[in-house]
């Protein structure tokens, strides 16, 4: 399988109108480019901040962390638990 799952949490889910999409990715690419790919999917997706915090496989990732087939990338608004 060559898909990456992109998840949208809380306000980001409301923003894009879905909680999950799958993107075909043939080779690993940096988070920064992956986010650009997601934002290019259409008007709703372009509302996501270009510098949104993302977690790759449940770990906060920097812009140059690599994302590849089978990974789960979550878009996380600033948290407000407690």
């Amino acid at each position, binding site marked *: 399988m060559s898909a990456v799952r992109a998840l949208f949490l809380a306000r980001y889910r*409301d923003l894009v109108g879905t909680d999950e999409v799958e993107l075909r990715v043939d080779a690993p690419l940096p988070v920064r480019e992956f986010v650009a790919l997601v934002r290019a999917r259409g008007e709703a997706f372009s509302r996501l901040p270009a510098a949104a915090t993302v977690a790759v496989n449940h770990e906060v990732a920097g812009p140059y962390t690599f994302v590849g087939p089978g990974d789960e990338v979550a878009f996380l608004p600033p948290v407000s638990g407690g």
Partner: protein
Amino acid sequence: MSILPETEASVSAGPWVAISEEPIDPSVVLARVGDPADGAVLLFLGTVRNHAEGQHVDGLHYEAYLPMAEKVLRQLAEEMCARLGTDRIAVVHRLGTLEVGEVSVAVAVSSPHRTEAFATASTLMEELKRRVPIWKHERYESGRAAWVEGHPR
């Protein structure tokens, strides 16, 4: 065929960590800590306030990115245990719909002296609010509802 002694599993239980839709019972959280060597027990409860940023709040809803929230909360509790030198920490966060006055988060810590218990519970709460992927969606008296992002104070 196991070559591990049968007692292996009970060597160290670690902190008690939970994220759940069930209402939180403070006395259950309190009962997870305490030891004859401890002279101090601290329990912190976060409760749903009827106001936020000048607006009247009717209730709220908590959502988590669950697998990551559980992982980060456990890591955090383990960091606090390492600092404390014991595993006598319990933390639970509520999810789902809550009314004003309900408990959203409970932290219990016990330790030989009170200063460590205060410092540990306070730091745990601060880091929980900074690191654990959980979001609050507030319902206002006006009928409006909104995601809260970050912690103004």
